């Protein structure tokens, strides 16, 4: 046995990014060189679609600000005043699907579009004021609609427009937000908001709490990827995990540990998925906000909302990694008027629109 064989090992010759000392402790922690090594380039010509939890709204806005082609299948009419467009959920993502918190929600949306079935009338909720909303995006129409038929017509239009966007998309950026959700067992659909919170009526015999584990999230991500290829072969998928903690948990756990569990599941599933799918990548927005070594705190006073500085840092690193704004000088596209539904501590023109925040009203 030679001397080289006895003293050699896999850590020899690894790049600086592999070692905590050089990659973190002694690194430029404002820029974190080597942290993001994109598997594929995003250029100003890349046709991008975005979806996900509230944090994903920042991604779309910053990409637009950097001159990227963020597609929008349901743009606000040009003459619609900005404050009206914001209140009616235009321009948040590439379609007016509102926040998609879980991988299962995205999977089911894509399946609904791919199957081409008529929208399900059982997923129209009546509000206390008698007006009607789409249970799968219950806050997108803040004043509701006059009839279930109108809701269904709008859903049909929505699905068609999202399909049109997906057929043109090179890259979908999806931000995983939650593992917890409520299933409507009558239809088998996961709902973005628990019935009774804002709209609909909670029926314990029909609405069942689900908390997706690693295997379920991973399976959903694979299904999402396969579905995306049906719309546009070769479409890539970039995953992020939202650093925003849960507003509330129905798991029975403390909301802090429930948050840690959810984010760990999402992070692990995203990592395993990306490891096995060459056309997928992961961007560490979660780590850049929540890792102690990443500085901060990047949270607002409520320890939940991400501060503007935190968002700017995350997106600056994202854009720099893709050569879209090497000096992180780019900013977000102009924000619409504040449409946040949270309390005063949530306020701010750049705050995302978060259905989940409705739960906050029920805190004792």
């Amino acid at each position: 046995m030679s001397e080289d064989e006895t003293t050699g090992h896999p850590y020899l010759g690894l790049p600086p990014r592999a070692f905590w000392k050089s990659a973190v402790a002694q690194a430029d922690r404002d820029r974190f060189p080597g942290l993001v090594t994109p598997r594929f380039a995003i250029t100003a010509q890349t046709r991008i679609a975005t979806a996900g939890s509230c944090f994903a709204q920042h991604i779309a806005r910053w990409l637009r600000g950097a001159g990227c082609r963020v597609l929008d299948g349901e743009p606000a009419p040009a003459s619609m005043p900005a404050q009206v467009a914001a209140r009616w959920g235009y321009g948040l993502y590439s379609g007016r699907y509102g926040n998609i918190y879980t991988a299962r929600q995205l999977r089911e949306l894509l399946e609904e579009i791919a199957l081409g079935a008529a929208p399900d009338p059982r997923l129209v909720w009546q509000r206390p004021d008698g007006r009607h909303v789409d249970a799968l995006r219950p806050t997108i129409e803040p004043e509701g609609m006059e009839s279930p038929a109108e809701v269904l017509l709008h859903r049909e239009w929505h699905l068609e427009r999202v399909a049109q966007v997906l057929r043109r998309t090179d890259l979908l950026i999806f931000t995983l937000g939650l593992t917890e959700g409520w299933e409507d067992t009558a239809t088998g659909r996961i709902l973005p908001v628990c019935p009774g919170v804002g709209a609909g009526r909670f029926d314990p015999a029909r609405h069942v709490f689900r908390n997706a584990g690693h295997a379920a999230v991973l399976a959903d991500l694979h299904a999402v990827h396969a579905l995306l290829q049906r719309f546009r072969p070769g479409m890539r998928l970039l995953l992020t995990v939202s650093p925003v903690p849960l507003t509330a948990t129905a798991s029975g756990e403390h909301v802090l540990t429930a948050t840690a569990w959810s984010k760990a599941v999402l992070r692990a599933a995203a990592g395993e998925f990306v490891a096995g799918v060459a056309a997928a990548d992961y961007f560490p927005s979660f780590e850049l906000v929540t890792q102690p070594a990443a500085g901060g705190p990047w949270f607002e006073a409520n320890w939940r909302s991400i501060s503007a500085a935190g968002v700017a840092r995350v997106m600056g690193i994202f854009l720099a990694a893709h050569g879209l704004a090497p000096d992180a000088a780019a900013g977000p596209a102009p924000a619409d008027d504040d449409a946040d539904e949270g309390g005063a501590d949530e306020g701010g023109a750049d705050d995302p629109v978060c259905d989940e925040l409705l739960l906050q009203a029920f805190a004792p």
Partner: protein
Amino acid sequence: MTRRLLVLGNSHLAALADGWRAQPGRWPGVELRFVGAHGERLLETELRDGTLRPASAAAAQDFARLGGGEGVALAGYDGIIIAGAMVALASAAALWREMRWVGLPSLAAEPDLATMAPALVSRQAAQAALVARLSARLGLRLAARLRAGCDLPIWIASQPRVSETILDRPRPATRAHAEALRLGDGAALSAWFDTAATIAARQAGAAFVPQPPATITRDILTARRFTRGATRLAARPGLAQPGDDILHANGAWGAQMLDAVLGAAG
């Protein structure tokens, strides 16, 4: 007892003034003072110590020439009428070109929603959009400013719909109007505008007075007999609008509008 009302307006003030001058005995017990300013110069004013004064050289020139003098003390009036001032159905028509909502005949007749160019929006979104657009127009901004500084009742008299004469032209001057008529949406467009203007006026602390039905043809146009011979807002009354003008109404329209406003004013 004589009711004294102050009538403020842009170029559409001329129609009301012409109607008033042509039939001085038509409104007994009412005294009107007309104060005009071109474009948006009525916003280049300030309301201080109960007096509306010009705050720019251009506004001062308009006030001096068009009835406002050096300023208008509001204490001498029982109410304020804002004439035209861009509170116009044209705002609704421009929005309608880009959006459709349930209840419109054109949407019901649409063969394929998937390829429809205008966006499908909810009726509430459409109404909110129009209210917001109207609220940014001269008439509503002026009303809100006056409301903040005085407690007189304020009425906003609708700007006239565009003239029926647009139909005489081989290429319509306003494509939205021609398209709305072709698709059968005229009545809905008219009702949508009147409703949104009523809401916007209420939000500004004023009351909206719609265009009198007798002066309207095909829901979204002003009958040609109410636009023929329209005059300009000028120090010398009677100066005619250009022959191809489609935006302004005449004194007969102004008289009808005054009937409506004074009726609303009780």
